[in-house]
C-alpha cells in the first residue's frame, strides 16, 4: 500500500447519491481497498475504515487514541476541530480517565432504569400523537414527534425544564452541523455548558428526582467530580440525547413506510419490535462520521500501515453494510438478527445512552403505527430535506398524513 500522502486520496466527506444509502464510495472501497486514504477539509490526509472486523479491532486497540484534543485528531470540519480541542467530557478521553468519569454515569443509563421509564415514555408519545392528529394534514412528523419525544424524555431524566429544549437543540445543531463557522460552534458549546452549570446550581438549591440532583449528591458533594466537569459532561449528554433519537425517528418512520409489510409486523407483532429497532439502527447508522481515532504508533493492518499521527474514521455506516457481517446488507429486513451492528460504536466509547435510545425507539414506532394505521408519507417530489448539511444524518422534515 502506498503511503498516506498518496495524491489520489479523494476529498472526504462524500455526497450520497441515494438519500437512504451510504455514499457509494464505501462499498467500492470495502471490496477493493477496505482501508483507504482521503483528504480532509484542511488538506490533511486520513484513513477510512470500511470493514466491520477492522472497525472493531481498531476501536478496541489502545495504539489508537480517542482523545479529541490530540493535535492530529481527524475532523470533518474546521468548526469541529475547535470544539474537539475544548472537549472535557469522557467521550473525548482515553483510559484510565474515560472509565473513571463514565462509571459515575452508567447507573443513570442502566438497563433497569431505562426499562422503568417505559410507561412514562408511552404517556409522552401518546400525548404527542394526540397533538399530531390535531394538526391539519399533511403534518410534519419531525416537528410534532421526532423532535419533541426524545426532548421530553431527556428533560424528564436530566431534570431540565422542557421550555429550554429549543435552546438545547440549537446548541446541538451548532455542534453537529457541517456548515457552521468555528466561532458559532464554539459559542454554542460554551452556551450549553454554561446552561448546564446554571442547572447544577439550581438543583443544588432545589433538589429534584432527576439525574442532575443524583450526580450532585453522589459525586459533586463528595468531591469526586467538579461542577465544571459535570457541566461539560451534562452538555454532552443533552446534545446526544436530543439529536440522535430524533434522527432515528424521522428516518426510521420514512423507511418503515417504504416497507409496509415490515411496518405491519412492527405494528402487530410485539416480538418483532426489538429486532426491528436494531435493524433500523444498522440500516440508518445516523452518527455517520464515527468512531474517530488517531494512531499513537505505526500499526499494520492487512497490507496497510497506519502511521503514528494518522487520523482514522472507522465508519460505522460502512461497517454496518459489510456483507461479511450482514448477509445481503443493503436489504432492509426487520426479521434479521442485526444486534451486532456498530451504530452505537464499539469499544469503551460505545454510546452511554444506547439503552435509552433503544427503549425510546421500541416505544415510539409500534405506538405510532398502531395509533395511525393509515400513516403515509405525503410529500411532493423533493420536499423531504435530507440532512446532507449535518454530521448526524436524518431528515429535516417528514410530511405525513393518515
Amino acid at each position: 500500500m502506498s503511503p498516506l500522502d498518496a495524491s489520489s486520496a479523494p476529498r472526504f466527506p462524500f455526497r450520497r447519491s441515494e438519500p437512504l444509502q451510504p455514499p457509494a464510495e464505501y462499498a467500492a472501497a470495502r471490496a477493493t481497498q477496505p482501508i483507504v486514504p482521503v483528504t480532509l477539509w484542511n488538506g490533511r490526509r486520513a484513513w477510512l475504515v470500511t470493514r466491520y472486523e477492522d472497525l472493531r479491532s481498531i476501536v478496541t486497540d489502545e495504539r489508537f487514541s480517542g482523545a479529541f484534543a490530540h493535535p492530529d485528531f481527524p475532523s470533518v470540519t474546521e468548526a469541529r476541530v475547535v470544539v474537539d480541542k475544548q472537549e472535557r467530557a469522557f467521550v473525548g478521553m482515553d483510559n484510565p480517565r474515560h472509565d473513571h468519569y463514565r462509571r459515575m454515569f452508567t447507573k443513570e443509563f442502566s438497563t433497569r432504569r431505562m426499562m422503568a421509564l417505559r410507561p412514562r415514555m408511552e404517556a409522552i408519545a401518546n400525548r404527542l400523537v394526540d397533538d399530531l392528529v390535531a394538526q391539519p394534514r399533511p403534518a410534519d412528523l419531525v416537528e410534532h414527534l421526532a423532535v419533541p419525544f426524545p426532548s421530553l424524555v431527556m428533560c424528564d431524566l436530566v431534570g431540565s425544564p422542557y421550555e429550554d429544549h429549543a435552546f438545547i437543540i440549537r446548541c446541538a445543531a451548532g455542534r453537529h452541523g457541517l456548515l457552521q463557522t468555528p466561532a458559532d460552534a464554539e459559542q454554542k458549546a460554551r452556551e450549553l455548558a454554561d446552561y448546564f452549570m446554571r442547572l447544577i446550581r439550581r438543583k443544588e438549591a432545589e433538589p429534584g428526582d432527576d439525574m442532575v440532583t443524583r450526580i450532585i449528591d453522589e459525586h459533586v458533594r463528595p468531591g469526586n467530580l467538579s461542577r465544571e466537569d459535570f457541566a461539560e459532561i451534562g452538555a454532552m449528554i443533552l446534545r446526544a440525547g436530543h439529536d440522535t433519537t430524533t434522527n432515528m425517528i424521522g428516518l426510521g418512520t420514512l423507511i418503515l413506510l417504504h416497507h409496509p409489510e415490515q411496518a405491519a409486523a412492527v405494528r402487530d407483532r410485539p416480538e418483532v419490535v426489538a429486532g426491528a429497532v436494531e435493524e433500523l439502527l444498522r440500516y440508518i447508522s445516523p452518527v455517520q462520521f464515527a468512531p474517530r481515532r488517531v494512531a499513537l504508533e505505526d500499526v499494520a493492518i492487512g497490507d496497510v500501515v497506519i502511521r503514528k499521527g494518522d487520523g482514522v474514521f472507522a465508519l460505522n455506516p460502512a461497517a454496518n453494510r459489510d456483507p461479511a457481517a450482514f448477509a445481503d446488507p443493503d436489504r432492509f429486513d426487520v426479521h434479521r438478527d442485526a444486534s451486532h451492528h456498530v451504530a452505537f460504536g464499539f469499544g469503551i466509547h460505545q454510546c452511554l445512552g444506547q439503552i435509552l435510545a433503544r427503549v425510546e425507539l421500541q416505544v415510539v414506532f409500534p405506538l405510532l403505527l398502531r395509533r395511525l394505521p393509515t400513516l403515509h408519507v405525503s410529500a411532493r417530489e423533493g420536499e423531504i430535506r435530507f440532512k446532507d448539511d449535518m454530521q448526524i444524518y436524518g431528515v429535516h422534515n417528514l410530511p405525513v398524513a393518515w
Partner: protein
Amino acid sequence: MSEARRFTVHVDVERCIGAGHCVMRAPKIFDQREDGIVILLDPHPPLDQLAAAEKAADLCPSQVITIDAAP
C-alpha cells in the same frame, strides 16, 4: 444431561463499562450492579447457555468476557 457438561466464563470487571449487552443476552449468567458494572452470576454455566454466552462475549464493547469450553 450430566452435571459435568458445563463451560467456564471469565469477566474482567475492572474494564467493564456497564453497557449491559451481556445481561440482555444471557441473564442466567450475568447481572449488573446498581452502577451498571457486570456481576458474574454463574462462572460455570450448563452447555445449553453456551450460545447466549458467546453472543454476550461478542457484543461486549469493552471485550471483557472470555469463554472457555472447559468446565
